[in-house]
């Protein structure tokens, strides 16, 4: 005979506004096997938990049902409380009468009745619950940081400075990310490179950090504390140990007209190249797609000139297998592709550029040495139009979100332009100016008031070229929507920040969820902003949503703390809600027939083969066995098992049937 306690929570008014909680406690208190029932305004509060603990002791409860919110947030809370009162935590279950009942139904007797049913179902389940013990798993105290932009750099340094090993993987030949492309940064106008490059060097020199550039993560297996990762180190066609970074090869390479990605196509680079002068590591790679040797089979100029004979044309990609305990995703963002704006002629007119291209023009190390010159003819633009919200906040374009950084960098662009072209006239077309942030609003005011930027509230409908000028047509909505036409020399589009290409594949590789825009999803938008739904994998920077530098850095440090906290334990405890293959006495051993359908469907590679041998050492039966460390308790194997040999702790077939039967037999 069970002695179950039922605790009905009002959740302030969230539940009690539509459900009569007292009545739920009363009717469920009369159920067979229920020893005690009560209701309380905030069950998760300290007095609420104390109430639960006292009741467990006083009534000698052997099972608990908390009727409250979704188990997502507070199941750990109540299980912990139970444990403190001496009850096995896995004998505590939550019945969700908030999301599943009070929030979705009007105030009505039927709503209360449904809440009662939901509790009754859970009471029946708890009767079948078994006391379980947490699983202990070891922790590999090495972190993997994917992405070497400012977010990845910050996260890696923070973790490394806590004394833990870090492996950083960067897709490009150099770390630095988008921040290394920027000219100056808002709102202080300090030079982006100047504040970033010391950090890049620190990463390269840190004894705890192993850096793999020109590399990509191919496979992520395992689980929190024990990830197994395959990294593809793409061939740089170079022996990095021999190369001294003298740069002779890059000056002698006969291929000189390859659009430079770092300069956003505004400059050229050779086939063997270092992305930018401050690159880390400052050693070149050969771009095989454009290298004359790989295309035509001869050239090898770089090999001839190399003083240390470091060029390796036959070098192959290397696959590294690493074991890490935590992963930080910091893969950043991308800007929109040119074909997105046929109406703005982006991609068609040379002088319609995006914000990142303008950064390169304004950068002292850029293709124009920091002089603002338009790409088509190299002339200084005297009239320039900045278009904010180019793509962002535009449901018709499929991007409904605000890219967040554009208001500020557009203000910065206008200011930089004015600082460099004193007789120039900058215009900014904007929808709203979103300058929330320390010193941000003041910065925008400065652009408008001190630098005389013309802010026009309205959208640009079309841009076309006429007699060497770009005609920008828009409306001024603060002047009653009057049409405006500006004959501009250059146009800069503040294009929407979008998820990096490959983000979706990486999310699937690492088993983290992502949103409709392919940005990685955090576990909770407010309270778990750097965690993902996959334990042990954290987020930093703009791979999650458009973020500016301070925000990316803050998120990265947040993620680093989470990793450090994880590494502060020598072993982790996991919920024991894992699958189990039943065992029976010989000669049956198990109802498992060894078909291994479960093995083929298990997303976590958690099913192993177990051989039963007789005394002579001969294999007499092969069974499936679940690796408790790997199993995530998804239940796919249970659904597929033909002989019902597999079950899940806490969600056994019998428990689920019991729940259904409880609903059917009122």
């Amino acid at each position, binding site marked *: 005979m069970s002695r179950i306690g039922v605790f009905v929570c009002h959740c302030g008014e969230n539940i009690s506004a539509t459900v009569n909680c007292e009545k739920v406690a009363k009717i469920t208190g009369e159920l067979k096997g229920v020893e005690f029932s009560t209701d309380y305004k905030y069950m998760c509060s300290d007095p609420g938990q104390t109430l639960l603990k006292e009741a467990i002791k006083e009534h000698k409860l052997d099972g608990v049902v908390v009727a409250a919110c979704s188990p997502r947030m507070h199941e750990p809370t109540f299980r912990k409380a139970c444990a403190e009162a001496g009850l096995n935590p896995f004998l505590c279950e939550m019945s969700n009468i908030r999301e599943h009942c009070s929030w979705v139904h009007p105030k009505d007797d039927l709503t209360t009745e449904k809440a009662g049913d939901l509790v009754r179902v859970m009471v029946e389940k708890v009767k079948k619950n078994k006391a379980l013990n947490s699983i202990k798993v070891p922790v590999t105290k090495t972190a993997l940081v994917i992405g070497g932009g400012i977010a990845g750099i910050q996260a890696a340094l923070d973790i490394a400075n806590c004394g833990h090993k870090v492996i950083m993987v960067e897709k490009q030949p150099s770390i630095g990310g988008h921040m290394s492309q920027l000219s100056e940064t808002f709102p202080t106008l300090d030079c982006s490179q100047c504040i970033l490059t010391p950090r890049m060097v620190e990463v390269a020199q840190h004894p705890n950090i192993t850096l793999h550039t020109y590399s990509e993560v191919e496979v992520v297996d395992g689980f929190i504390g024990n990830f197994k990762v395959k990294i593809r180190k793409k061939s740089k066609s170079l022996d990095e140990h021999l190369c001294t970074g003298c740069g002779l090869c890059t000056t002698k390479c006969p291929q000189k007209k390859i659009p430079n990605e770092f300069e956003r196509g505004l400059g050229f680079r050779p086939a063997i190249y270092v992305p930018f002068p401050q690159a880390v590591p400052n050693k070149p790679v050969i771009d095989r797609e454009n290298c004359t040797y790989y295309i035509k089979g001869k050239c090898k100029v770089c090999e001839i000139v190399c003083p240390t004979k470091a060029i390796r044309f036959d070098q192959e990609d290397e696959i590294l297998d690493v074991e890490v305990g935590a992963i930080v995703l910091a893969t950043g963002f991308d800007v929109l592709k040119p074909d997105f704006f046929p109406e703005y002629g982006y991609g068609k007119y040379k002088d319609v550029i995006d914000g990142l291209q303008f950064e390169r023009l304004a950068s002292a190390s850029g293709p124009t040495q920091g002089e603002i010159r338009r790409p088509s003819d190299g002339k200084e633009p005297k009239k320039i139009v900045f278009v904010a919200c180019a793509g962002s906040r535009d449901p*018709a374009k499929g991007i409904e979100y605000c890219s967040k950084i554009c208001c500020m960098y557009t203000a910065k662009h206008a200011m930089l332009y004015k600082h460099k072209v004193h007789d120039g006239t900058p215009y900014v077309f904007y929808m709203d100016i979103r300058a929330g942030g320390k010193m941000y609003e003041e910065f925008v005011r400065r652009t408008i008031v001190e630098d005389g930027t013309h802010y026009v509230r309205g959208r640009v409908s079309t841009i076309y*070229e*006429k007699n060497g000028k770009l005609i920008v047509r828009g409306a001024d909505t603060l002047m009653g929507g009057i049409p405006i036409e500006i004959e501009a020399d250059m146009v800069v589009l503040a294009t929407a920040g979008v998820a990096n290409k490959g983000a979706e594949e990486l999310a699937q590789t690492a088993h983290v969820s992502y949103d409709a825009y392919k940005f990685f999803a955090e576990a909770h938008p407010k309270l778990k902003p750097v965690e993902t739904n996959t334990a042990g994998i954290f987020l930093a920077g703009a791979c999650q949503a458009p973020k500016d530098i301070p925000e990316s850095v803050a998120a990265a440090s947040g993620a680093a703390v989470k990793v450090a906290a994880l590494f502060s334990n020598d072993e982790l405890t996991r919920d024991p809600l894992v699958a189990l293959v039943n065992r029976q006495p010989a000669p049956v051993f198990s109802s498992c027939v060894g078909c291994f359908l479960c093995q083929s469907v298990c997303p976590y590679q958690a099913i192993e083969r177990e051989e039963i041998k007789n005394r002579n050492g001969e294999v007499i039966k092969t069974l499936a066995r679940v690796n408790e460390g790997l199993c995530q308790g998804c239940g796919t194997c249970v659904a597929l098992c033909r002989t019902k040999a597999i079950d899940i702790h806490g969600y056994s077939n019998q428990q689920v049937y019991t729940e259904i039967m409880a609903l059917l037999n009122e």
Partner: protein
Amino acid sequence: MKVGFYPGCSMKGGAREYQESVSALAKVFDIELVEIPDWNCCGATAAHNLNKELSLSLPARIMALAEREGISDIVVPCAACYNRLSIVKHELEADKSLSKRVASIIDLKYEGTTQILNIIQFIDKYITDRLEEKVVKPFDYKTACYYGCLLVRPHSILKFDRVEDPQSMDVLVKKAGGDAIDWAYKTECCGAGMSVSRTDTVARLSGNIMKDAVDRAAEVVVVACPMCHSNLDMRRPEINKFLNEKIDIPILYISQVLGLAVGLDAKTLGLNRHMTEVNLPVKPAMEVPVASEPKKVVNTQKLEA
């Protein structure tokens, strides 16, 4: 090949040459255009400003009649008619009870199974594949393709081409041997029905369109809408007065351009019916017989040898 044909009012009146050229072109490609029997007005701009049910019922009746005849595709050369028919089809598809109500008003069965094709979609579906092989007189002119508004908007319903910078007519003109120029006024408003009440507005709006085309050295403007045509063609005196210029380049329908390219004569295509005289110079490319093809082959063989 049989395709339903909905002429609407303009094909029978001001845009007779549009129908003549579409019919002539279809004939070249062995397509039989079947005029929908007992067709009625599409409702034009008037109906949907006055009475919602009327504006739905008129196009619905046209489509229902086509269904009754077993017609699966209707070509609607007039862009305004095409717009009305497409939008009504879309609205009735989205709201089944409305669809029933409309069926009871028109007293015909309406399933919404017919495909509504504008002239470009019609050409793309039935002609484009065979177009290049039939071109005997390449239309070797600098051509400004003018799409106007009704073919491309609202994009969410019509899903035609790239709404801000449509390309499909340009592609057709290129296939006919023409030089489709890049210009800025492809989808700007011509003034539409203001032609009568506010001729000055039309002169200004259509004037800007013509000015940009001429500034970019267009020798001809190609349209796919009788309304656009009448504004750019018939209102030329007012346009020229507004611009204080003398623009005399002709406005042709896309069907006329393709018709010329496949060797149809001016009269069959109704070129004589335009207000602005069509006086296109003969270009050398048009005089070269089709035999230019084998010549090229000889050349390449030589090169290989």
